[in-house]
């Protein structure tokens, strides 16, 4: 702890020296600041904004009202996680900010003083893009596209120097940046504790956006679809729902100074599972043809098995993973997903209540691969259900 405190003090002294030098001369002493800070300062300087500016511009109330309406889905997705992050900060003075992809603040939660006091962080409507406010944890992650931490004088504007801040871009279901989640803390040592929850919460918001899109997709899904899309959607939301509860528990534990690593890693594992299943589900829900692309057949088979776990359980069929040889094939992902689902459903019907289905993936001659499902009834009768995929690109026997 002593080493960390000293390292923080040393880093802060260097950053402050560099910032003073920047103000006095306009030069950036790259040897004194972290590389992402130097990059952000260069961009901020190029925009012509002054580090001594005391004011942060904001959009007018009418425009803000329109913006909040347009970003209602992002706000709804983020709200539970803003609250969890705020709780995770415990008694420390803090604010959690949600901004859109342009760096316009949409929502702020935190302690009374940080949200509404004389030293409050910028509220809804404030413009925090780098162009408007220099290096900060809303604008800078939007440019860098990754997690950014700025401590004290690493911020461009002096008004932020009392904070240790962290920000992370939020990506929508299509992978494009939808906004930013930022945490502002007065207590530097609390920042380390909140960081892991922030990263996990950002994934939670992204999962929430995906879940909302799945609900929308079900409205548009073909009625003649061979698969129980709505029930599968309900099943895959389970992983996301479990992750959200874990994040909430982690936030409570963090506030009480307790350990959170187990909870956060469990939440991240669940979100990864949810995302994988959501990709497969979207391919099933999409009626049209896709494009031939490399597909990891073994991963698809494993994800389909996972996605159908509850469906199989309600049919009293045991789904078992056998040997899944790593295999890449070139195929239309959507067609492959639908064919895979049909094969699984056929095998489960053949196995019947009390039966089992074993899943295997392997290579075939003539540059193709297979997903083979062996259905076994309670009387021991076996039937094979095979999906052959041409266009094998790689993989091992």
């Amino acid at each position, binding site marked *: 702890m002593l080493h960390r405190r000293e390292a923080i003090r040393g880093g802060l002294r260097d950053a402050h020296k560099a910032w003073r030098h920047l103000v006095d001369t306009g030069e950036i002493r790259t040897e004194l600041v972290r590389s992402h800070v130097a990059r952000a300062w260069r961009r901020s300087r190029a925009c012509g904004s002054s580090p001594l500016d005391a004011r942060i511009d904001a959009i007018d109330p009418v425009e803000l009202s329109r913006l909040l309406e347009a970003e209602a889905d992002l706000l709804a997705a983020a709200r539970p996680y803003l609250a969890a992050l705020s709780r995770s900060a415990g008694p420390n003075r803090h604010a959690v900010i949600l901004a859109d992809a342009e760096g316009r603040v949409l929502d702020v939660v935190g302690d009374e003083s940080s949200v509404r006091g004389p030293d409050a962080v910028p509220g809804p409507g404030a413009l925090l893009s780098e162009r408007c406010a220099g290096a900060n944890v809303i604008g800078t992650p939007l440019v860098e596209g990754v997690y950014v931490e700025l401590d004290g004088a690493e911020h461009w504007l002096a008004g932020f120097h009392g904070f240790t801040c962290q920000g992370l871009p939020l990506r929508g279901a299509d992978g494009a940046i939808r906004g930013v989640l930022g945490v502002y803390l007065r207590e530097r040592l609390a920042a380390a504790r909140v960081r892991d929850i922030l990263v996990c919460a950002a994934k939670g918001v992204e999962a929430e956006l995906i879940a909302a899109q799945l609900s929308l997709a079900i409205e548009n899904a073909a009625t003649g679809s061979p698969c129980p899309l709505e029930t599968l959607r*309900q099943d895959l*939301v389970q992983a996301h729902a*479990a992750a959200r509860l874990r994040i909430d528990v982690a936030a409570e534990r963090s506030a009480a100074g307790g350990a959170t690593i187990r909870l956060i890693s469990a939440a991240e594992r669940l979100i990864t599972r949810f995302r994988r299943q959501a990709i497969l589900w979207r391919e099933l829900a999409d009626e049209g043809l896709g494009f031939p692309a490399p597909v990891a057949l073994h991963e698809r088979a494993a994800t389909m098995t996972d996605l159908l776990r509850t469906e199989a359980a309600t049919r009293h069929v045991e789904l078992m993973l056998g040997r899944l040889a790593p295999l890449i094939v070139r195929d239309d992902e959507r067609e492959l997903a639908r064919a895979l689902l049909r094969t699984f459903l056929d095998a489960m019907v053949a196995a019947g209540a009390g039966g089992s289905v074993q899943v295997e993936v392997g290579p075939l001659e003539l540059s193709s691969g297979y997903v083979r499902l062996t259905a076994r009834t309670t009387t021991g009768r076996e039937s094979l259900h095979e999906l052959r995929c041409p266009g094998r690109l790689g993989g091992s026997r």
Partner: protein
Amino acid sequence: MSDATDYGARARHGRLRPGTNERPTGATDGDAGPAASRELCVLVADDDDDFRESLVEVLELLGWRALEARDGDEALALLRRETVDLALLDHRMPRRTGVEVVEALRAEGAALPPIALMSAHRDLVELAAAARLRHYVRKPFGLHELRVIVERIIEAPAPQ
């Protein structure tokens, strides 16, 4: 009895302390602060291990005792055997759905504790209404939503 709603049955069931058959006194009822909350026993029925374990962890964090069921049959057996203050039943479970568990208990004429149906079903409100269940929780939900919902159900006055 078979036509009892979960809510009406709750009036008969009362808010019982786990491990006792005593109905709490009126004073305790009206004084249901944190100390009373700690004694609540909640049944969690869900086939998804991750979700069920997460929910149990939340309930324990909130100071409540949790019983677990992995499918509809287990939920039914526990509801027959144990005294619970609230049952959180997933709808889509192996062996019996949440609604089928409720119907089975009604058919037996059993007194039902307060029951909340959990689901990500898009028509959850209609589903709960059709099963004559007043309470439902849409998945996903968070710790604080759960606390509010549970406390509202537990503290709601029983209908006359």
